[in-house]
């Protein structure tokens, strides 16, 4: 049978006719048939057969990374920016273990990702063979699911299942570990396009009509309601419905870090980010609210502070896809299970406007004159504040950039001062808080969004964790702009040391290479900015450059992120910005009440 069809060129994905293919070819053919256009990876012994077949699939772009963690973050960034499954490839052993941080990161933020790893030949499994590692065992708690494939004929169905599991229900990373002999083997192959059916996997949950009815009643009766916009709003593409809900009800919206962009920051009812570094008025409003509509968020400890005193007056409605999240951290009064967009479609047409003018005015009062929030005109006394850099970046990119942040102080400043009006325009490592995420994730986002103005915002510490990917930018012609918020410290840890460890700066001062020269060494552009008046030119030059451009912003060294709710403290017990010495008033305000 196979002999009669060999004249079909390899690399022409076919759904109809069986062909004799190797396992290696099947890996790529299946991915191509699943709609995958780019994979991020690094070759090695146990995945070499697959790489050998890669040129047969020229429609599949392969990005050669410098470290497999970068491949995982790129696949993650691709998935966040596109809403599609990101795919990364690594060899067995150290290649696979290098993926681990990236996989855990994707798991914590529920990112659809498929990782294909090579494995030693099945006859060698368990023998401690060269570069053998039990990667399915290692990744068991940090994947949504994982598979070992040791038979060629299982490759296609398994990769299809992996793509399906990764992208359906609450998304997550899925790892497929394929032995070298399965790659080398051949089988009659025909891509199977029938819907996947897994007997034990039913991620579709739905709310009952009486639960929707109950939610409508609670909204109608509310005096001080607040909506939480979480990551789920973005992932279920529910932003438009959320906007409609707010336009109908006028209920203010607080956002989680990962929810930023899910509701327009420029909307008058947008309160900004909640939680540990949330604005004072947001956290105060949460503590005073009598109804919380929690949309696609999981009451992370960085959001709630002390659970015992959290939102004590509020009835809570949890809109959530994953039943295991209900009552995990915060006991809720009503849970609406299911895809958020579907639930909102049922709810929004029937929602009635509650009488909440007093409440809305109260919150506006807390916000005070919103102009104080606009720090652009506030004096900097000749100093370069990170908040000013981020704010200027927002202005000079017209608020339209796709920003990818790393983890730390700059991440919080970005959340506070770059106002995102659209979903999928802020990508950040939320749950795991992975330093080194930004550069590779932005590169993945570039492959998903070729037209976007993509900015990495990273600290000098985190940037160095994956700075090797600059070489990938150069080799693969991936253009991103990099803003390093360089304060010479591991800033967030330094801030904690200042606040909670008696100001002992242990292992936080960090010496960096000359980032301008580092960029130049990669054949890229580098710019240094030490004064605020040069921010605009640098931003514009970076945008105009065809190649990746790294801007080294030398900012105030010992600045801190305010306000701050210490870990585990009551949500409205915040550390506020002290008046800096030598300044008659604060260059940066966090609330109208200062």
């Amino acid at each position, binding site marked *: 049978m196979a002999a009669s069809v060999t004249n079909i060129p390899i690399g022409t994905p076919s759904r109809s006719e069986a062909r004799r293919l190797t396992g290696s070819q099947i890996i790529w053919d299946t991915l191509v048939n699943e709609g995958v256009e780019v994979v991020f990876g690094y070759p090695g012994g146990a995945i070499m057969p697959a790489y050998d077949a890669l040129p047969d699939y020229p429609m599949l772009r392969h990005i050669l990374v410098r470290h497999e963690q970068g491949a995982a973050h790129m696949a993650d960034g691709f998935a966040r920016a596109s809403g599609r499954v990101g795919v990364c490839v690594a060899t067995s052993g150290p290649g696979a273990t290098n993926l681990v941080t990236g996989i855990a990161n994707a798991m914590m933020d529920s990112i659809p990702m498929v990782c294909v790893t090579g494995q030693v030949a099945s006859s060698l499994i368990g023998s401690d063979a060269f570069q053998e590692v039990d990667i*399915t*065992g290692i990744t*068991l*708690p940090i994947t*949504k*699911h994982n598979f070992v494939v040791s038979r060629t004929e299982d490759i296609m169905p398994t990769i299809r299942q992996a793509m399906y*599991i990764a992208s359906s229900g609450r998304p997550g990373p899925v790892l497929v570990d394929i032995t070298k002999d399965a790659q080398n083997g051949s089988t009659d192959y025909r891509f199977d396009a029938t819907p996947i059916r*897994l*007997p*034990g*996997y*039913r*991620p579709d*949950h739905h709310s*009952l009509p*009486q*639960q929707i009815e*109950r939610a409508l009643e*609670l909204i109608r009766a509310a005096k001080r309601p607040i909506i939480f916009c979480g990551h789920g709003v973005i992932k279920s593409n529910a932003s438009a419905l959320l906007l409609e809900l707010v336009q109908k009800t006028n209920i203010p919206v607080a956002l989680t870090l990962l929810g930023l962009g899910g509701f327009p920051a420029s909307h008058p009812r947008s309160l900004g980010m909640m939680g540990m570094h949330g604005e004072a008025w947001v956290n105060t409003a949460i503590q005073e609210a009598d109804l919380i509509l929690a949309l696609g968020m999981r009451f992370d400890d960085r959001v709630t502070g002390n*659970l*015992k005193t959290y939102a004590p007056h509020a*009835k809570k409605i949890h809109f959530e896809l*994953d*039943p*295991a999240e*209900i*009552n*995990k*951290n*915060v*006991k*809720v*009064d*009503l*849970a609406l*299970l299911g895809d958020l967009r579907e639930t909102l479609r049922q709810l929004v047409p029937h929602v009635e406007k509650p009488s909440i003018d007093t409440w809305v005015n109260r919150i506006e009062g807390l916000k005070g004159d919103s102009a104080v929030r606009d720090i652009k005109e506030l004096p900097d006394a000749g100093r370069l504040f990170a908040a000013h850099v981020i704010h200027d970046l927002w202005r000079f990119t017209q608020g339209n950039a796709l920003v990818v942040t790393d983890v730390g102080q700059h991440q919080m400043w970005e959340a506070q001062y770059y106002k995102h009006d659209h979903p999928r325009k802020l990508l950040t490592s939320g749950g795991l808080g992975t330093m080194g995420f930004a550069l590779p994730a932005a590169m993945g986002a570039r492959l998903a969004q070729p037209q976007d103005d993509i900015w990495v915002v990273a600290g000098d510490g985190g940037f160095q964790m994956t700075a090797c990917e600059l070489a990938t930018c150069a080799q693969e012609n991936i253009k991103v702009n990099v803003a390093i918020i360089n304060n010479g410290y591991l800033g967030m840890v330094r801030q904690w040391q200042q606040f909670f460890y008696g100001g002992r700066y242990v292992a936080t001062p960090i010496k960096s290479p000359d980032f301008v020269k580092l960029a130049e060494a990669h054949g890229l552009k580098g710019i240094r900015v030490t004064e605020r008046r040069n921010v605009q030119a640098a931003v514009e030059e970076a945008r105009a450059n065809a190649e990746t451009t790294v801007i080294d912003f030398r900012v105030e060294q010992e600045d801190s992120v305010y306000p701050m709710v210490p870990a585990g403290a009551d949500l409205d017990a915040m550390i506020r910005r002290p008046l800096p010495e030598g300044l008659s008033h604060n260059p940066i305000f966090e609330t109208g009440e200062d």
Partner: protein
Amino acid sequence: MAEAQSQILRTFVAYVEDRPGVLNRISSLFRRRNYNIVSLNVGSTNEPGISRMTFRIAADDDMARRIEANLYKMVNVLSVEDITQKPSVSRDLALIKVNVGPEKRAEVLQLCEVFRARAVDVGPETLIVEITGTQDKIDGLSAILAPFGIAEMVQTGAVAMTRGPQGTAATSLQQPPPSLRDLSVA
């Protein structure tokens, strides 16, 4: 949690696909979520390819529901049911090796009779007793036998089944547990 509820010993039944690594996945979940397993039993069913598990965990109401939800979420888990509050039959099996020679053998066998335990092996200085029943019954027998000297003891962990018609876990393979369908607490 907002308020600490009282934890009780709960019994869950789960149907899972009979594949390599499934038990590892489930025990890994319990470890990761910090659920302390009291006992766990897995074995085949009348359906080829499907295994049935019984496990006991001390948990409060919310935790029990999350255990169900986390298990149901797993790709290889077909159904799960908390049968703690349902009329059910639960059995452990234990083998107890008692240090007993010919002179006291009759006395031990007589005690076993009371517990409906039976001797399954007799050696010159030992006796293996098999007992099936609830944990209480097994604890009772082992306490009675302790003075003779227990050389070894092994126990299966509970297997459980609801009384009456076919249980929910068996009839609702691929269906969410009932507790997940009705989450309106207020």
